[in-house]
């Protein structure tokens, strides 16, 4: 199973599209609210019409990105100073994203869910290390310093 994602994964209404095999014929659409359309065997034309994808998206659609650059956190009160590079992978039926910079992982049944999982996890880590900053060992102290370079609190 090859996964492809049409559109901007950070925008609302994102429609992840899974494509079986290396051609755009059968796919499952997972709507933004998590509900799924039935699997369907579609022509390339139908695929474009249903997914509202541009032909270029379809041409590139068989390839899941090897990396994504995360530009936002979901948590109010903090934001990223610069994008974080995430490596995209699969593990059984799950999509995973991994930050080597922070040794942090997110996963889900599709890329959008995996990214949201990562955003929650990173924000939780930031809050925890901030609260416990006076008793961090060398490794987590280094992580805390690196997090401060990337995340800032906003009023």
């Amino acid at each position, binding site marked *: 199973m090859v996964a492809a994602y049409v559109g901007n994964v950070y925008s609302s209404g994102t429609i992840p599209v899974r494509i079986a095999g290396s051609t755009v014929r059968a796919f499952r659409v997972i709507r933004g609210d998590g509900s799924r359309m039935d699997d369907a065997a579609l022509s390339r034309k139908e695929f474009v019409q249903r997914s509202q994808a541009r032909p270029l998206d379809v041409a590139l659609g068989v390839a899941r990105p090897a990396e994504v650059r995360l530009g936002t956190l979901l948590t109010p009160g903090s934001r990223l100073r610069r994008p974080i590079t995430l490596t995209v992978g699969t*593990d059984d039926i799950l999509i995973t994203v991994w930050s080597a910079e922070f040794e942090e*992982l997110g996963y889900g049944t599709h890329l959008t869910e995996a990214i949201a*999982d990562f955003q929650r996890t990173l924000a939780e880590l930031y809050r925890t290390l901030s609260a*416990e900053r006076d*008793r961090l*060992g*060398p*490794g*987590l102290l280094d992580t805390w310093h690196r997090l401060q370079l990337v995340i800032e609190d906003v009023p």
Partner: protein
Amino acid sequence: MTLKRAEFDRIVTKLNLRVRQSGDLPVYFEYEDKMIVRSRRSNKQGDLPMPHAIRQQFKLDEDQFRDLLNCPLDYDGYVAILREKGLLG
């Protein structure tokens, strides 16, 4: 390849990890009142993906992580590894 939840829970027990109650389950290895390493067991159903990522979070190489899962590596052994890596301060 995935890691079974029961295997992760065995690590939590064996290393006496501190579990923080939140949406997911962040876990921290603490030593002499210092937080040393952290990992997380998501509350999502199913096995945990990317065991090699979890291994990196625990600061272990492949053989050490295998020993941790299969029991030869105990709490004292883990402390010795972290001390050797200079992670205990």
